[in-house]
């Protein structure tokens, strides 16, 4: 425990993660030769286009959106798998990207970890569970010897509801839900403070999902973990999050605490998403599904990128891109909201 942590309120109150204007553009142009011969233009994909948010210690921020909205890219930006084209984030008051590039990168990486979506591809099929869960322990020099390693791995496996005897087995001997638990155990090995979870339960059956979500919530409570939870499933998001950010084509369109977002969504896209969820109660009611599909991110609409599908779009929406502004305690990027035009 550093002296910094024991100092009064200021550091403890400060959010653990502060992302500012994060942006990531990918160059998806054809190869140089094709471009020259066929005269094709350079193509740039703005996967994330200026995203800012804060996550307080011990809390969960969920990022929701459909395919192509950039939420997975944000996840990878926050663990240092990608370098941002613009912007950055502060982790515990320090510039994270500077830390990733410095000689002390390992210290930063020890504190941030990630859980992935596909339980079948996130564990090396040729390694034993012991090797997989023990790798972070080796990397960060957290153990002294073999015996130490076995004990630590056993502890970690037990904390996710698996048995210590499982450490000699290989991934293919486990089910999807169990593999995801092994992933969680691996992520926790270096005792991180911040976990980025990229759709961790999307590939799991409903009852298995319930088990994994319960474990994640328990661990958060016991260890004071902070989560960034990416998902496309609003019901799951509602269950796990404290705050929710809705993304569309690389931008945050609404950022609010869970209750406000679900009870009183402001942005037309959020409303459409909530409406689109098949509900188990009052079935058979006529819903009006919104028309259109998510536009091609290579060629986004001008102004507000949602305007082609928005029932409230006006001239301003077609030309001026809305900025995330505070409104009654939540943040929303919508001209209609700002102008008080929504019903």
């Amino acid at each position: 425990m550093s002296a910094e942590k024991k100092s009064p309120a200021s550091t403890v109150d400060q959010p653990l993660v502060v992302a500012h204007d994060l942006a990531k553009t990918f160059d998806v142009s054809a190869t140089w030769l094709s471009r020259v011969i066929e005269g094709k233009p350079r193509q740039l994909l703005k996967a994330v286009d200026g995203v800012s948010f804060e996550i307080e210690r011990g809390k969960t921020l969920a990022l929701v959106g459909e395919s192509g909205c950039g939420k997975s890219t944000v996840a990878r930006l926050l663990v240092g798998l990608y370098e941002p084209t613009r912007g950055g984030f502060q982790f515990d008051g320090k510039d994270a990207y500077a830390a990733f590039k410095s000689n002390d990168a390992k210290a930063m990486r020890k504190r941030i970890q990630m859980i992935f979506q596909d339980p079948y591809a996130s564990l090396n099929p040729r390694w034993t569970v012991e090797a997989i869960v023990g790798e972070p322990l080796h990397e960060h020099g957290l153990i002294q010897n073999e015996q130490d390693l076995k004990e630590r791995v056993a502890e970690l496996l037990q904390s996710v509801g698996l048995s210590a005897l499982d450490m000699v087995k290989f991934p293919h001997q486990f089910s999807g839900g169990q593999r995801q638990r092994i992933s969680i155990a691996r992520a926790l090995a270096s005792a991180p403070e911040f976990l980025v979870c990229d759709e961790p339960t999307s590939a799991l059956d409903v009852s298995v999902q319930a088990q994994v979500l319960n474990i994640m919530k328990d661990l958060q409570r016991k260890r004071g973990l902070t989560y960034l939870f990416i998902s496309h499933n609003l019901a799951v998001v509602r269950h796990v999050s404290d705050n929710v950010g809705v993304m569309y084509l690389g931008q945050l369109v609404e950022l609010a605490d869970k209750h406000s977002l679900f009870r009183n969504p402001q942005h037309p896209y959020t409303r459409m998403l909530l409406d689109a969820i098949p509900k188990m109660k009052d079935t058979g009611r006529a819903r009006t599904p919104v028309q259109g599909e998510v536009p091609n991110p290579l060629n986004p609409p001008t102004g507000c990128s949602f305007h082609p599908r928005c029932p409230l779009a006006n001239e301003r929406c077609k030309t001026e891109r809305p900025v995330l502004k505070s409104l009654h305690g939540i943040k929303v990027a919508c001209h209609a909201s700002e102008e008080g035009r929504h019903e």
Partner: protein
Amino acid sequence: MSLLQVKNLVVEFSSRHGVLRALDGISFDIAPGEILGVVGESGAGKSLTGASIIGLLEPPGRIASGEIVLQGQRIDQLNNDQMRSIRGRKIGAIFQDPLTSLNPLYSVGKQLVETIQAHLPLSDAEARQRAIGLLEDTGIPAAAERIDHFPHQFSGGMRQRVVIALALAAEPQLIVADEPTTALDVSIQAQIISLLKNICKQRGAAVMLITHDMGVIAETCDRVAVMYAGRIVEVGPVQQVIHKPAHPYTAGLMASIPDMAVDRERLNQIDGAMPRLNAIPKGCAFNPRCPQVLERCRHERPELIQGVQLQNQLPTQVACWLTSTPQTEGRL
């Protein structure tokens, strides 16, 4: 008369470890024009049931016993040629991935016309008109032009609409849809579900909707069958199964789905996991995980029997000793 009757269907796979029973005595009916949902977790056997009905069961899987009867005619023992004339004309199919359901080398129109002409005696021009009509019905804008486009020129949701058009091309009485919306975004899902429901009701086609998503079932289906470890554990009207499940597995499943309306600290979980095919417990397959297990459940397998029937509703069937044991009758 039922459109489709499945009686005690048993599907087995022979492997070097022995014979595995993937489906162990499945029985259900689908009435004409009805939408039946088949729900279950991975490994429960719902896709296999669909594949057996369409006749696309891949070896080493095979139908070991039981009957599949379509409009009074047995179809489980037909050879490939006979099955081909049934597929398309009487049974249409929609699969999960629209990208691989369409041939990327042929235009959408060509594929539609080919299917239409395979089953209906129409000329080229008539078939093409019909195809355009189908595309319009499934909500594809500018159908007369887009009919000559190729699959890669359509977006995911649009492609699935084309697949639906293809399934309906020869006016089948039954559509088997295997996870038709799982690969699509939530907003597109809503569009496709409502399209499927409306277009099938309009044409009087029955639908067997296979999915793991209870929300989709709740929105579209009339009745739902819940599968577990290769068996059907409960069948009944959708509202009843969802809100008043009779089988402990169904109850556990419903309770573990995160609910938009209620905030809970922990989700209800069913401990353990669905058994593997080579380790199905004796008696009731669910007994090791059942919170209300009786001694009888460990030895005798419960049959699917009539359960509670509410007023004006279709009957339910449950395979559970709790339902049929006299002293528990009062509970329901």
